């Protein structure tokens, strides 16, 4: 038993660590690690991953809450969309063929790779659209010199639509869909990067929590796997966030992209060859 435990913990610590330093979250790496290395069925990997995404989001959010960048109102509006998507996704995960899940996973890896290579910059708006103003979504964020900058929000329905997709993917594939969420908030809704990262982290926990509850209630979480994986991913993520300030993430970007492309290729190959 000790051997199995050590293997699972090592896989999970590694996935949590890479997830934290790449900013993509542990789920993106733990699902392929369990499927490819530990030879687990996709459904088991998804269930265990959802639980560990909840754990890492909770760990990271302690720091984010203290900084105060999370926009609770934006989170709550978009959470309506992601939770709806996640519950439907997690429900469908019980009936959708594994081939479809593997292909979708490969597609999400390509999206994450694209997210990793895209340079992002803040495009702060001073005028929001009427719906965003009615929902009072604007906020304040400190700039580089520490001054408070006011930002406005636009395109709530479009952002919400993408969030339903992010939630669906989360429930189906056991990932936090952080890359998709941050993209929706950055590009579509024009939130500042710090705000979208912190808000996305809050949302990831709730979205994955919704999916995890469906899996747990259905009896689709293999405790034997999920327990050590949750512990390992949390430890790995904590270690990752500690060393992150000392790393040259720019230099590692290529490595992350290569890993993501390899995972996409392997998952795609599995789906097409029917392994």
């Amino acid at each position, binding site marked *: *038993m000790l051997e199995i435990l050590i293997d699972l913990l090592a896989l999970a610590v590694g996935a949590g660590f890479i997830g934290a330093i790449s900013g993509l979250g542990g789920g993106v790496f733990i699902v392929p690690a369990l499927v490819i290395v530990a030879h687990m069925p996709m459904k088991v990997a998804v269930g265990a991953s959802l639980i560990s995404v909840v754990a890492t989001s909770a760990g990271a959010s302690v720091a984010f809450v203290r900084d105060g960048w999370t926009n609770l109102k934006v989170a709550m509006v978009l959470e309506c969309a992601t939770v709806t998507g996640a519950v439907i996704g997690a429900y469908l995960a019980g009936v959708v063929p594994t081939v479809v899940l593997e292909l979708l996973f490969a597609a999400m890896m390509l999206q994450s790779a694209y997210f990793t290579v895209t340079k992002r910059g803040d495009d702060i708006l001073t005028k929001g659209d009427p719906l965003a103003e009615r929902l009072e979504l604007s906020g304040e964020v400190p700039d580089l010199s520490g001054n408070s900058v006011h930002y406005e929000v636009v395109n709530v329905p479009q952002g919400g639509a993408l969030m339903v997709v992010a939630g669906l993917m989360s429930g189906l594939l056991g990932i936090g869909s952080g890359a998709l969420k941050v993209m929706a908030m950055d590009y579509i809704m024009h939130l500042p990067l710090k705000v979208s990262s912190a808000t996305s982290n809050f949302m990831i926990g709730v979205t994955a929590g919704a999916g995890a509850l469906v899996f747990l209630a259905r009896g689709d979480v293999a405790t034997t796997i999920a327990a050590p994986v949750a512990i390992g991913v949390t430890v790995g993520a904590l270690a990752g966030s500690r060393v992150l300030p000392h790393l040259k993430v720019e230099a590692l970007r290529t490595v992350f992209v290569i890993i993501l492309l390899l995972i996409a290729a392997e998952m795609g190959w599995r789906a097409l060859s029917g392994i």
Partner: protein
Amino acid sequence: MPKQEEDRILREWTPILLRTILIAAMVTLVAGLVLTYTFAPDYYVERYQAVQHGRLIGKETLGLLFDRVRQGNPHAVLTIGLFVLTLVPLARVAFCFLLFIRERDYTYVALTAYVLAGLIVGVLAGSAG
């Protein structure tokens, strides 16, 4: 209560609440694994291999689960640990719900209630599915 005071309470209490639940879940999971290793290592290996072949235990009612915990079943302790972990996001949403009620911001009370309801529907959909 002034807005800044509420912000301060939210900012100070949320991390404490989150950390407490997270630590409780982790302690339960580690305890469950230690108990499994001490009392039922063969069962663990058997379950691990069964899961590799896609055979899961399946649904358990909460009552049955607590009965097993009382009997000191290590596996049930692990399941409880996982449930406690999923309480973290639930607690955070519930906290926001209370905050919006306090602020009498009824649009957001409704939106947060929808999110909470979604989480509950998830459990029901899972139990039925």
